[in-house]
């Protein structure tokens, strides 16, 4: 049964990818890539990767779609050039694909419990993590404890990406809010038309933020954690910006504050590492934080997840602000 679902979803994915290749309306491609990421996420759930599915749903479908839409809004909605040298490309692609498929012949069958990958590090994580880290969710314990240094790297990457986006496109046209809104066709009357939408979204935003907090602090026991919570929290702000305009959203939290929050998140993460060093442990060795190693682990994971969450949240909102401040400029 699981196999049937798996195969059907994979087939849908293939169809979607082909359609993305064929269609030249960029809007249609963006809609299809939204579907593509929904399909991916369901596939991840059917293959037991619930945390990954969580992230993919929040990031791929939500944020990526919004960013792509604001880009085509500011540039062009149509692909104008025909594919270049399609036959040669097809040849290259087929040859590469054939070599890769030949490579899979030696790979263990799908779901084989005797595959080498399941016999090296994973058994130790599965057996020992509950005694060593104390978290039910093994993905969380690997992410933030065993491989905490990796995650610090990822957080810094996200931070850098956010800084680069702001550095590249900035918040241009910030002074000319009135002009831009008139140009984009968003006036006060216009927003008043969507009365139902505004009320419903107003109702939802607190619930979304609350849910984000739940995901943040529940990461030890179920799917979730800093990355996902940050994105969900950011999507609450994106809702607000979409409905009430960029001006209002920037009055709630200004880009300057957001960049401070982002830096604070990374600092929290790094600070926990330094603290453990000072208290006589290794870098990010949470055992020394409290007398009881398990409590120390708990505290450490809590703090660094908080750091990750705040960084991801503020960077996502910053990126969204940067993109949507560009959106109406040209019209």
């Amino acid at each position, binding site marked *: 049964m699981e196999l049937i679902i*798996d195969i059907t979803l994979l087939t849908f994915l293939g169809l979607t990818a082909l359609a*993305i290749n064929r269609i030249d309306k960029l809007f249609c491609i963006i809609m299809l890539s939204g579907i593509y990421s929904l399909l991916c996420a369901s596939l991840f759930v059917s293959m037991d990767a619930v945390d990954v599915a969580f992230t993919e749903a929040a990031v791929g479908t939500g944020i990526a779609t919004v960013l792509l839409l604001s880009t085509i809004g500011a*540039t062009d909605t149509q692909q104008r050039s025909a594919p270049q040298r399609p036959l040669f490309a097809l040849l290259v692609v087929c040859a590469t694909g054939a070599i890769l498929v030949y490579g899979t012949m030696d790979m263990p069958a799908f779901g084989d419990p005797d595959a080498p*990958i399941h016999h090296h590090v994973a058994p130790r994580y599965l057996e020992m993590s509950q005694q060593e880290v104390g978290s039910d969710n093994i993905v969380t314990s690997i992410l933030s404890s065993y491989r905490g240094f990796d995650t610090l790297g990822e957080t810094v*990457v996200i931070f850098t990406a956010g800084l680069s986006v702001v550095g590249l496109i900035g918040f241009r046209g910030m002074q000319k809010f009135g002009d831009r809104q008139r140009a984009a066709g968003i006036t006060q009357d216009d927003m008043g038309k969507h009365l139902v939408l505004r009320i419903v979204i107003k109702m939802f935003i607190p619930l979304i933020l609350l849910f984000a907090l739940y995901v943040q602090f529940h990461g030890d026991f179920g799917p979730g954690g800093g990355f996902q919570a940050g994105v969900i929290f950011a999507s609450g702000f994106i809702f607000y910006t979409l409905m009430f305009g960029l001006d209002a959203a920037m009055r709630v939290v200004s880009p300057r504050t957001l960049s401070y929050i982002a830096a604070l998140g990374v600092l929290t993460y790094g600070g926990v590492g330094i603290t453990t060093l000072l208290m006589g442990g290794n870098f990010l060795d949470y055992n020394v934080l409290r007398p009881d190693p398990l409590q120390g682990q708990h505290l450490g994971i809590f703090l660094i997840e908080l750091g990750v969450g705040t960084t991801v949240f503020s960077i996502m909102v910053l990126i969204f602000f940067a993109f949507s401040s560009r959106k109406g400029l040209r019209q």
Partner: protein
Amino acid sequence: MNIGAHYNYWVAIFLMMTGFYVVITHGNLIKKLIGLNLFTTSVFILYISLAKVKGGTAPIIAPGIEVYSNPLPHVLILTAIVVGVATTAVGLALVLLIYDRYGTIEEDEIRLKDDSL
């Protein structure tokens, strides 16, 4: 050899090659970025397929469950997804800048304008 044994890998390779094809043939920069996303996602699918254990469930410890899927690839991919969207955002920002400078997002038109300078 039954068909389910390698189907996941093959589809992952198919998606990867579709993404590759989109990147190398299409001149539209946004479409190139979406092709790059297809490529990235195919790698995710490959990793997650490797992690699956038949009869296992999600690696969240619960009483009465013995077999869990391998959690390590999940961790790697989880962070890769967030980094992927961050890099996409940087790419889109570059596209916006290119549009400002050249007034187009088609690769060949950009080349023409570069040559005429």
